[in-house]
């Protein structure tokens, strides 16, 4: 069965520091992978997605993620965080047309001034 694990429930970084949010997935075939962000009172917004091709994916707001098949990982990175990046981040996995998209439990990012 497909599943997503986000091992960090909370992460705190200083403004301007680099960020890496971890995501591990379990899926029986080539996965489709997503990162979403949810700010307080806001809907979920797609940051980036991977379907095929280049394993380093660029997204909005300066985020990127790297698909590593050997590690079943799709970690999200940003070189320098801003206070406005404080939010909850969800990794998700899907597959063929008939598959659901399964979300992880999320990582809440806190930014120190």
């Amino acid at each position, binding site marked *: 069965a497909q599943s997503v694990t986000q091992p960090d429930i909370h992460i705190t970084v200083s403004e301007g520091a680099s960020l890496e949010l971890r995501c591990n997935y379990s899926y029986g075939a080539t996965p*489709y992978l997503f990162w*979403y962000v949810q700010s307080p009172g806001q*809907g979920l917004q*797609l940051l980036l*997605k991977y379907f095929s091709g280049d394993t380093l994916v660029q997204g909005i707001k300066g985020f990127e993620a790297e698909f590593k098949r050997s590690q079943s990982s799709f970690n999200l990175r940003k070189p320098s965080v801003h206070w406005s990046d404080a939010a909850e981040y969800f990794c998700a996995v899907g597959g063929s*047309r008939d598959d659901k998209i*399964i*979300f992880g*439990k*999320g990582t809440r990012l806190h930014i120190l001034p």
Partner: protein
Amino acid sequence: GAGVSQTPSNKVTEKGKYVELRCDPISGHTALYWYRQSLGQGPEFLIYFQGTGAADDSGLPNDRFFAVRPEGSVSTLKIQRTERGDSAVYLCASSSDYPTDTQYFGPGTRLTVL
């Protein structure tokens, strides 16, 4: 353009009552999804429509939950005999194609069952 809208934004009901939650997708989007997000959890898939038909309803927790999309646009999620455990934020999303297109999420309906 207008995004996905959901009404009501908040719904408080009593245990045992019936509720309807409405989703207006982005115009022209053929795919529509319902998710449920409990406190401290990620969104949990409930049902997926392609056009008017439910292509996958395997996420509906039991037969108290039902969803329709009669004209291939607006969808209604219906919950009968509500229970306190149904309290959650119900999210709707739409996309022009599954799964390669981006799913655009609405702001959600917060359902509280007293």
